[in-house]
């Protein structure tokens, strides 16, 4: 580049007409942020590992090993229910907690709050990006499950949609809470540890009914236990009960309230 080309002001001179600064329409701002978040999530190798590769390993493992199977259900059905629960928690909770934690440390949340996007637009874009990544996860993992013998029914898939949305809100809120309360290093450790606990011992891989008393009752009250039960009810012919819906709803509402109350936008 020549020095001369840099000496002029960019795209604006005193004589040129100057449109007043205005924000882009709200939907465009939110969608722009959704696209940015989704691209960051899907272009990061570590994030892809957590979002796709790890749940795929869970699917193959549970398909082959006799863990968490329900009477009357195909092994691939219980395996897929556990896998989708794993995928949902990995993206809504772990990935979002880590990404938001780093955004907070790097001052991104401060900067965003000064732009036309604002804090509410940032959160809306983040939620939409999470849902978008979930769609990719469901498509990839569903295709893998089909290759492993899964034959999906339309009704059971439709029944899983509200569960999926409710789970996204509950775990997304918990992820933001961790990101907004803890130091970045602690966010990294806590979100990964809790993820493993949720999946391995929190009612995702193994149905809560298989836990010995008194763990059974405790796991039922976890968001992961409720999510696991609901996904098994939808996808693996499990028994539908309103109790897990109430539990997940309480976690979603309580989590959202806690975020609005205690989330810190800066690392100060």
């Amino acid at each position, binding site marked *: *580049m020549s*020095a001369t*080309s*840099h*000496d*002029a*002001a*960019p*795209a*604006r*001179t*005193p004589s040129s007409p*100057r*449109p*007043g*600064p*205005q*924000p*882009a*329409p*709200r939907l*465009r*701002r939110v969608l*722009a*942020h959704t*696209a*940015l978040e989704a*691209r*960051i999530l899907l*272009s*990061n190798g570590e994030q892809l590992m957590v979002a796709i590769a790890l749940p795929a390993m869970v699917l193959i493992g549970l398909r082959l090993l006799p863990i968490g199977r329900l009477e009357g259900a195909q092994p691939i059905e219980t395996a897929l229910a556990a896998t989708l629960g794993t995928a949902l928690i990995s993206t809504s909770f772990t990935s979002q907690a880590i*990404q938001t934690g*780093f*955004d907070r440390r*790097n*001052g*991104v949340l*401060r*900067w*965003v*709050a*000064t*732009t*036309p*996007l*604002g804090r509410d*637009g940032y959160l809306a874009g983040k939620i939409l990006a999470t849902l978008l990544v979930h769609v990719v996860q469901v498509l990839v993992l569903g295709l893998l499950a089909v290759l492993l013998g899964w034959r999906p029914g339309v009704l059971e898939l439709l029944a899983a949609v509200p569960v999926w949305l409710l789970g996204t809100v509950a775990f997304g809120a918990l992820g933001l809470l961790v990101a907004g309360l803890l130091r970045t290093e602690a966010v990294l450790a806590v979100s990964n540890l809790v993820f493993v606990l949720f999946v391995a011992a929190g009612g995702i891989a193994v149905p809560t009914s298989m836990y010995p008393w008194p763990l059974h009752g405790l796991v039922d009250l976890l968001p992961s236990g409720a999510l696991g039960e609901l996904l098994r009810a939808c996808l693996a012919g499990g028994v539908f009960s309103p109790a897990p819906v109430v539990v997940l709803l309480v976690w979603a509402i309580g989590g959202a309230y806690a975020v609005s109350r205690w989330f810190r936008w*800066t690392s*100060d």
Partner: protein
Amino acid sequence: MTDDILASPALRADGLTHSYGPVRALDGLTLTARRGEVTALLGPNGAGKTTAVSCATGLLRPSGGSLEALGRDPWNAGPEHRARVGVMIQDGGLASGSRSMQLLRYGASLHAHPLDVDEVAEHLGIDEFAGTLVRRLSGGQRQRLALALAIIGRPELVFLDEPTAGMDPSIRQRVRHLVRSLADTGSAVVLTTHMMDDVVGLADAVCVIAGGRTVAAGSVEDVITAHRRQKGAVDVRAVAHGVDPAAVPALQADLEAVVEKHGGRLEITGAGAADLEAVLLELMDGANTSANSSAPTADTTTATTAAEGRAR
């Protein structure tokens, strides 16, 4: 915009206070920034500069005093107001997992009438690291990207926190041109900096902050002159043209004699850091290379000889 709006300050803070627990960060700060001017906030670390900018950009709610940015209370301002204000925060605020141009295009998409992204990228040299992940950028590259994001929406009021920190001299000069052109096209620019060169060569007005209070404000010259006067100093600046370099010591002796006659003391300094930097930049840009790099004749040397005397 009406003439009244144009004439009113873009930023006005009066008696601003803010505390972090028991620590009082702002203690009655007064600050004014006008359209078409660059206003520099100066002060040591912990003086309250960043807190003042945080309040002015709506990130913090002041606990007392009055504050107006473009006629609005920034704390309660919506997206329409935020579109009129550009902010470059000290810690960058850049998403580390995104790529440079991707982030700049994203920033532009938040505005209805942004500047041309490619043109801004070329102007600030961002096109040189367009596809690089933000977390792999150097400090100076991050600064440039953050600056581009601050101005991309054609803001009327711009806050730049240490805009030239970590930049090499040629980029710093480019950034100064950009900041100057922003002010020249009517924007109010508020910058915090530790670099005196930024202030002397760029700012129209200075606000010196210490302990959360304004200790001096006005034009750069006014503030410097007033400060030295307080210390009993008088500035004498002289530029001699067509003088034989051999005669400079004699001139200096004459000046000393005059000052001594009045019971003062004379300090003579040569060209300042800003002048030296400008010469270096000119050399790097290859401008007038032959004239500057050739052996100095008496005429070229004396033409750039400047003596700044300070009598005490």
